């Protein structure tokens, strides 16, 4: 039976950072995954490990609606099942060879992942859209206090660069978290860059780097 945490959505990336026909690495509580967008624009994810030789599938490449390993070209479908083994073109791979599909969905320009399929969609923030993600070597508490934010269930709200900003957190370890910042959709380009700069300052403070610490 799946643990409670398996059926929970975790914010893992910014939608705009994953172009059609590309694959990127991301972190789930249970370990690394490869998130890929097929040529059709549909998003998929699976374990970041080729079942053949253990190569990271996020180093691989996307063709059409398939993900291929960079090492020996094993090709996986949207269900994570191996479709082709280039060294043995005549062999139909057994259905048991798969790379561990992970559920993904997109809300507010944020990619969320879950090990098991949760019943409810991820939390929504009407009128907000993802700005950027950054990895911070600090705890959520340290990040929240560095921006004088309010934290409820891993979601920090704070004023950054003069804008009301929402920070989603994905805890990678005791002193490491991925932060995905959301801003009101109408925020100007100039203010988005300002908030990005404020996020860099927030990271320096939370990590205790520089004079501000």
């Amino acid at each position: 039976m799946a643990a409670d945490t398996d059926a929970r959505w975790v914010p893992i990336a910014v939608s705009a950072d994953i172009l059609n026909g590309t694959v990127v690495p991301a972190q789930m509580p249970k370990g690394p995954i490869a998130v890929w967008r097929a040529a059709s624009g549909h998003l998929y994810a699976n374990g970041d490990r080729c079942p053949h030789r253990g190569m990271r599938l996020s180093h691989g490449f996307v063709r059409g609606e398939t993900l291929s390993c960079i090492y020996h070209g094993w090709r996986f479908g949207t269900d994570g099942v191996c479709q082709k083994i280039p060294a043995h073109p005549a062999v139909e791979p057994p259905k048991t060879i798969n790379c561990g599909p992970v559920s993904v969905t997109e809300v507010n320009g944020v990619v969320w992942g879950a090990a098991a399929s949760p019943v409810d969609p991820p939390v929504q923030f009407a009128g907000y859209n993802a700005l950027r993600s950054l990895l911070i070597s600090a705890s959520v508490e340290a990040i929240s206090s560095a921006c004088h934010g309010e934290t409820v269930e891993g979601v920090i709200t704070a004023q950054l660069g003069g804008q009301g900003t929402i920070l989603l957190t994905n805890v990678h370890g005791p002193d490491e978290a991925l932060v995905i910042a959301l801003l009101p959709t109408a925020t100007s380009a100039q203010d988005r860059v300002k908030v990005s700069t404020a996020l860099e300052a927030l990271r320096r403070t939370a990590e205790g780097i520089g004079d501000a610490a």
Partner: protein
Amino acid sequence: MILYDYILSPSCYKVRLLASLLGVQLELRAVDFHPGREHKADDLLNLNPAGSIPILVDDDFVLTESAAMLAYLASKYGPDWAADGDPQAIALQHQWLAFSNRLTATLGGARLVEMLNFEGDLEALQSSGVVALRELEAALFARRVSGGTFLVGDAPSIADIACFPYVALAPDGSVSLDPYPSIRLWMRALRALPGFIEMPGIHRLHELAQDPLAEPDS
């Protein structure tokens, strides 16, 4: 034009890469950098007393710094690759060329320690490399907000070519590139350029080539 070259050197690769993107033929002379230390032998020290590679020789004209070689190739064969006229664009290009030296010293330094057992404080090199990568990520994010893909202006330039190799090879020095989505998109755009060439550790985009497993058209 002769390039004294070492296949595993990101600085030599910068010159080979730009030459290929410009369609310029270089005559390559392989230097036994490791373990032979041929760049420290008299023949090459006579050409370049600094004892470094690459060295570019165009008849009697000799260059020993890769950033200068990029500027030379661009102004001679591909003026679009170097900023011209706009004072801010020219200055920004110089700034990124100077920044690329920081990448060489930090990420490149960590790579030499990890790959070729050079002496050095690996942890210090890696953490100053991360500082440089974070700066680059933030700058490329700001470029994306205003619709840009490359470091300066609307098109790829010698600024991108100068910074790309040591960034792409950061994992050789055990510095992860996973946390940098804007750097990932920038590197992808560079790898998609017509004329792009590989070096060990930097591969081309396989998906741009014809699918070898595709059913042949009947």
